[in-house]
């Protein structure tokens, strides 16, 4: 809104009503605390643990949790599970977060253009969105992953390509209602270009729904990475991810159940936290949304 900036006293975001409402949403605060803890643990934790995640010790295979300094036990190669879990968390959280950023950019771009331009552009874009939303994309994603044997970056892009549609739909709805507002009409009368109005005037005002969609998209992206990696087509060992740690765990379910239970619990905690945060943000920013 640089062109029309009216001088106002700088308002601090933590004094806003939205921040107040968020701080009163108990589940969202719990989610935020858990994600902060989890991220910190994944970033700092590996330096504090006595074992390296790649250190193979065949004498200490299948040690159950709390054996000596192996707090979460060891895997079939005697690698420390706690170290692996935290290193895997780095990958899973990074992939989830990056995939979210890419899908938000694509989704916001498509949503703003479709919502502002309307007409046939909107029709073509939104029918494409509908189409791909109603398609079992997991089959296509797995075929693509199997064909390319992709790097973590490619996995991230593939995940982003299946998650941008919901963002686009949310942004489009918001922009369509913003388009008719006075400040947009005023900008149009001032002769500002369509691009300027879309990205400088409308987009900042659609940030609420985008932020909510972002936190829910991180949750879905982490979950999808886990699915693909669990099936063996995602992040490839020796690089650990929460999903691929579960990949071989089923055959040891009877003898070493912790190999399956612990990484899955980490996924569930991370995804639940992002969903709680998203729910809190939705209430705080007063975003109407019939998607879950």
């Amino acid at each position, binding site marked *: 809104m640089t062109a029309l900036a009216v001088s106002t006293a700088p308002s601090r975001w933590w004094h806003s009503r939205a921040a107040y409402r968020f701080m009163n949403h108990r*589940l969202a605060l719990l989610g935020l605390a858990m994600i902060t803890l989890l991220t910190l643990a994944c970033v700092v934790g590996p330096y504090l643990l006595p074992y390296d995640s790649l250190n193979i010790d065949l004498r200490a295979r299948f040690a159950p949790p709390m054996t000596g300094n192996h707090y979460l036990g060891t895997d079939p190669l005697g690698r420390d599970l706690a170290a692996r879990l935290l290193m895997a968390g780095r990958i899973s959280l990074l992939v989830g977060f990056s995939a979210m950023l890419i899908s938000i950019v694509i989704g916001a771009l498509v949503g703003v253009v479709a919502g502002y331009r309307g007409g046939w552009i909107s029709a073509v874009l939104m*029918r494409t969105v509908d189409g791909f939303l109603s398609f079992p994309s997991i089959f296509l994603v797995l075929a693509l992953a199997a064909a390319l044997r992709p790097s973590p970056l490619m996995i991230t892009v593939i995940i982003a390509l299946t998650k941008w549609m919901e963002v686009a739909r949310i942004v489009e709805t918001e922009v369509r209602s913003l388009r008719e507002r006075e400040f947009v009409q005023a900008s149009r009368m001032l002769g500002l270009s369509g691009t300027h109005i879309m990205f400088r005037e409308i987009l900042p005002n659609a940030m609420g729904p985008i932020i909510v969609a972002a936190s829910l998209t991180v949750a879905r992206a982490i979950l999808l990475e886990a*699915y693909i990696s669990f*099936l063996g087509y995602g992040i490839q060992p020796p690089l650990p991810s929460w999903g691929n740690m579960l990949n071989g765990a089923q055959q040891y379910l009877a003898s070493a159940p912790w190999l399956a239970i612990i990484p899955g619990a980490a996924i*569930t905690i991370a995804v*639940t936290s992002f969903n709680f945060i998203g729910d809190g943000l939705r209430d705080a920013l007063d975003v109407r949304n019939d998607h879950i």
Partner: protein
Amino acid sequence: MRAFLLSRLSQSLVLLVIVSMIGFVILSISPGGPLSQQGLDPGMTQADIARIKEQLGLNRPLWIQYLDWAWRLVQGDWGHSFRGGTPVLTVIGRHVFATLLLMGTSTMIAIAVGTWIGIRGATHRYSLFDYLATAGAMVALSIPTFWFGLVGIYIFSLRLGWLPAGNMYTIGDGSALNYLHHLILPSIVLSLVHVAVWSRYMRTATLDAISQDFVKTARAKGVSERRVLMKHVVGNALLPMITLAGVQLPSILTGALVTETVFTWPGMGRLFLDSLNYSDYPVVMGLLMFSAVLVILGNLIADIVVAIVDPRIRLA
């Protein structure tokens, strides 16, 4: 209404064509191409591979191969599996029943349990039950289906020994009871996410219906509260659920894919992953198309059912 259905159908057909093209390109650019499996066979010479390519028509330009494949597909010739040469449709046909059995059972569980939780949450709004159901639904949506399956197997099969850990039936025992016994755990696992989705939607839909004028009218007439709830509120709230059942199909298929993997369930999801592992591209491509058609048909049926049930929409 007919115009609406026609436009939906044509939209779906366009999507089907695009998806088939993407799938076709993906599989032909994959390393080794459709012949990667034969390429690994040490007894094969370059000349042999060239001959097979000639026979299968793989030396032609890609778009001609695509058109040829699509034309055969329309005529019902979906190609032959690289493993044993069985027609693709026959291979898929052997696995359809298992997947539909699993999906059907878990959808019924999800609808029954989800509807009940949703209605109770709406009629007892802001109660402890409602609060737990809301938080529980969010946790349920966050649990990876395959992990829930593993935990279920660990508890109910390995620890307690109550339920089988996998397969659709015990070999040599084809009784319905045996199928049912094997069906319990995977169908509950697959239904978890959908119980959450259904209960959230049902809660919203019930709350919407409760505040409608016809409910006030019914109450004013002295209709019992139970009858108001069952006939007026739930009757109206269930309508959007039919559409939801169609919309949920892709996600149920995704869930079925991993559930079948965990429970060694002989359905289409397992077939897809097996075929992907063996680079059995005709079957992979066939399943891609088959699942797309299944989802499109499901959505179409949901639209038609809504049109029939809802008196406000008339089929022209």
